């Protein structure tokens, strides 16, 4: 079982390298920018796939968690505490490296929160909010769950849009680069484009490995049992409330991480990232990917996000996603990739299992 999970992961890494070489050879290196952004969006949708496809809980508010991550990081890293330098707390934080001095576009000096510290705060905040929201929300089912998560998303959107500190309709810009190792940073700097592309996809690969492990573990089985028959899962000793909550929090954290890095990559974030249409778009991608298929979701995420970011859908961008939702749910509620792929994987798994059963 373990080796069979390695092969698709290796294939993913191979495809990532291949695409980079192709863009290099084809002189289309600028494609990497959209592919990097797609990678971050993919991080959100594979988390959402776990929540919707495996635990069976819809969320129409995941853009909210992306925004919590992105905006927290943006606010903290663009904050200027230089005027409070003498304040003992600020001085202590600066000494500890939590605060960092840098120069703004015009050469003025700023004292703001270090991106790493901001990232930790952002992810923790998403974690805590997902916990607080998740406890009551996940008690709901069906329409009520959909409306409650939609409501959560709308609240985040109207807060972001209505608050001056978050830049209101303009959002926050001039977010500094996010330093990684060896002078490499997550930023829109075109000389770092290739490295950023690899970093983003490495992140997706790691998340993919973790989630693939999870779904084939005891937890994954418990989540699917909740999806299949929640009361029976409870009767089998599955703490359904806790498992749903943990899944919700895990997917919220993935969305927040994506928000943090994409915000540093783009150098800013705007309120549209928190909009309901974004949340619906993530749901659409999970639906097309086959609801319960991480690979299907990943593939559709890259395809759709790339096309959308390159502007191929023109002014029909939202309409395309709306149309996709309807068509998929009408004709192929199990997704277009999902059904076939899963049947194939199922066959292989069965074959392997039979062999291993025989050998026992």
């Amino acid at each position, binding site marked *: 079982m*373990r080796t069979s999970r390695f092969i698709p992961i290796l294939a993913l890494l191979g495809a990532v390298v291949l695409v980079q070489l192709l863009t290099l050879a084809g002189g289309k290196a600028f494609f990497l920018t959209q592919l990097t952004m797609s990678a971050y969006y993919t991080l959100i949708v594979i988390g959402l796939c776990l929540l919707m496809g495996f635990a069976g809980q819809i969320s129409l508010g995941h853009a909210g968690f992306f925004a919590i991550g992105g905006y927290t990081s943006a606010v903290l890293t663009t904050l200027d505490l230089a005027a409070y330098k003498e304040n003992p707390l600020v001085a202590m934080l600066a000494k500890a490296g939590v605060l960092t001095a840098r120069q703004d576009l015009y050469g003025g000096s700023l004292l703001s929160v270090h991106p790493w510290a901001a990232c930790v705060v952002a992810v923790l905040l998403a974690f805590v909010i997902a916990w607080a929201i998740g406890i009551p929300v996940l008690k709901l089912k069906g329409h009520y769950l959909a409306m409650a998560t939609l409501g959560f998303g709308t609240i985040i959107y109207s807060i972001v849009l209505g608050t001056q500190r978050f830049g209101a309709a303009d959002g926050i810009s001039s977010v500094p680069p996010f330093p990684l190792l060896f002078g490499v940073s997550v930023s829109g700097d075109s000389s770092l484009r290739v490295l950023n592309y690899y970093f983003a996809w490495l992140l997706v690969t790691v998340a993919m490995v973790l989630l693939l*492990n999870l779904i084939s573990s005891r937890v994954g*089985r418990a989540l699917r049992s909740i999806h299949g028959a929640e009361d029976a899962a409870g009767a*089998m*000793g599955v703490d359904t409330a806790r498992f749903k909550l943990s899944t919700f929090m895990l997917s919220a954290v993935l969305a927040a991480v994506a928000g943090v890095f994409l915000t540093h990559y783009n150098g800013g974030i705007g309120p549209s990232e928190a909009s309901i249409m974004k949340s619906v778009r993530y749901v659409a991608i999970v639906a097309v990917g086959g609801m319960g298929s991480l690979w299907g979701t990943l593939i559709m995420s890259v395809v759709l996000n790339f096309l959308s970011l390159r502007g191929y859908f023109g002014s029909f961008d939202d309409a395309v996603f709306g149309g996709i939702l309807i068509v998929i749910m009408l004709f192929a509620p199990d997704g277009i990739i999902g059904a076939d792929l899963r049947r194939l994987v199922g066959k292989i798994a069965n074959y392997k299992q*039979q062999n291993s059963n025989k050998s026992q």
Partner: protein
Amino acid sequence: MALLEVKNISKRFGGLQAVKDVSFSVREGSIKAVIGPNGAGKTTLFNLLSGFLLPDSGAIVYKGRPIHAKSPHEIAQQGLSRTFQHIRLFAHMTALENVMVGRHVRSRAGFLAGMLNLPWTWREEQEIRERALSLMEFLGIVDLADANATSLSYGQQRAVELARALAGDPAMLLLDEPAAGLNMRETADTARLISRIRDLGITVLIVEHDMSLVMQISDEVLVLSYGEKIADDAPRAVQGNPEVVRVYLGEDDA
């Protein structure tokens, strides 16, 4: 020694008194049956025992500890497992996976361990799989391991559900009409199976309509009528109880 003790338990739904002041106990290692006409409160009683409903009053004591305020998963974790009258298998999962979920209470890999796939977690997975397969072997359904659970025949689904309930090594098993929808031969098989389960040391409490099955395997029979206990005795004594005869002859339900 009483494994399960029910003390003066009552449950009311609006104007309907579904269970009224019922007390009884189940001896460790015995098979006890709950019978009664339709609407006697048998399923309500089961839902109270397994934590799906909260009693209005009264107490349920299992292994010396009160469980009537606990949720279904906590009760299952204490080793009290159940099946459902209307089979509730997990859709989109194989028969084997269904049974493996039953092992949930006897394993511990959580989110972190699952994501990291640590050596001990895959050893645990292996153990869960082997245990599930051996139970399916015991019930004669090991051939169905890889079939989609909800595509199986009715009798096979019952067997999968039973295997799932047994997979957590429960000390006590609640069976809600295990012979419903089965033909005579399958019913006889089920009766033998329940005796074998008891012989494994598992205490069984069973709700059943099939009188021959109940009389054949039970050590004790509890009779409910309109939510009230009218008899609680050995099968032979219950058969001779005039109150029980009246309740049952009044309806052609037996």
